[in-house]
């Protein structure tokens, strides 16, 4: 097997479809702009909401960011993907907004050093008996749940609540990765976090949501 490939500093560059889209936008194609808004508005809002406290202000930030996108369009050179470039504009708009609404700290400083394990230590055998570090009792097999269990409204509400409870950095990463469908590189570039930190945040966030689902199913 090949040695572990290091992807740390590789940023996605604009694709040919994106280059074509930018050309249409520069030519004033309204359809192209509407498509762009449909594609990115939700992701932009998710990013903005992690930098400012209220949804209303986040919406203003995103509208300002769209103006920034339009102003910058002529200078876009495709050295990053269009998505990454747009998300950077959102972050910068949110950060420069100032005033008491802004959470004026760099995102990377929000990677807290809490050492909460993904699963509580009591769930594993201690050092004294046999098999230390192995399950004291197995987690349940969710494949045996009724088909509707994972897709029902009640389950989705559990997931939404669990995400709401997360510290802001974890909430942002899980929202971008698992709801908005961004890939790891895009999240790192947009939020200026390292690949390792992005993964730690994603891991903690997913582990927290899993635990909430487990409590829900085992109840």
């Amino acid at each position, binding site marked *: 097997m090949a040695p572990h490939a290091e992807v740390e500093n590789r940023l996605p560059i604009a694709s040919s479809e994106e280059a074509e889209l930018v050309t249409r936008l520069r030519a004033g194609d309204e359809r192209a702009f509407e498509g762009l808004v449909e594609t990115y508005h*939700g992701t932009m809002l998710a990013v903005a909401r992690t930098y400012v406290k209220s949804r209303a202000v986040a919406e203003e930030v995103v509208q300002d960011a*769209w103006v920034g996108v*339009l102003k910058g369009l002529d200078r876009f050179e495709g050295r990053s993907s269009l998505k990454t470039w747009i998300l950077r504009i959102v972050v910068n708009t949110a950060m420069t907004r100032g005033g008491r609404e802004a959470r004026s700290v760099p995102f990377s400083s929000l990677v807290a050093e809490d050492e909460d*394990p993904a*699963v509580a230590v009591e769930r594993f055998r201690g050092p004294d008996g046999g098999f230390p570090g*192995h399950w004291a009792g197995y987690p349940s097999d*969710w494949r045996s749940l009724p088909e509707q269990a994972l897709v029902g409204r009640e389950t989705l509400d559990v*997931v939404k609540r669990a995400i709401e409870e997360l510290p802001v950095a974890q909430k942002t990463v899980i929202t971008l990765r698992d709801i908005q469908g961004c890939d*790891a590189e895009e999240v790192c570039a947009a939020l200026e976090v390292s690949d390792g930190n992005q993964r730690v945040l994603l891991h903690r966030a*997913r582990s927290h949501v899993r635990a909430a689902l487990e409590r829900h199913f085992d109840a």
Partner: protein
Amino acid sequence: MPESAEHITCQEVVELVTAYLETVLPADEAGLFEQHLNFCDGCIWYVEQMRATVATVGRISEDDVPPETREKLLTAFREWKRS
């Protein structure tokens, strides 16, 4: 001691699972991870739970762009076009 470098515990599996699912574990650790799954149903189910969690989070729908926002942005686009 059996728990030396040559195997990993369930407690380690639950911390490595995200790196495993992201396929960024170094080859030797990925090997130990899969070796563990070969004999541990609990961890197979745990990994499945994490996959199911990711899939369920993915079912949360994104909000549609409200019509008034779309109109406002289109107006901004038209102004930008004229300038």
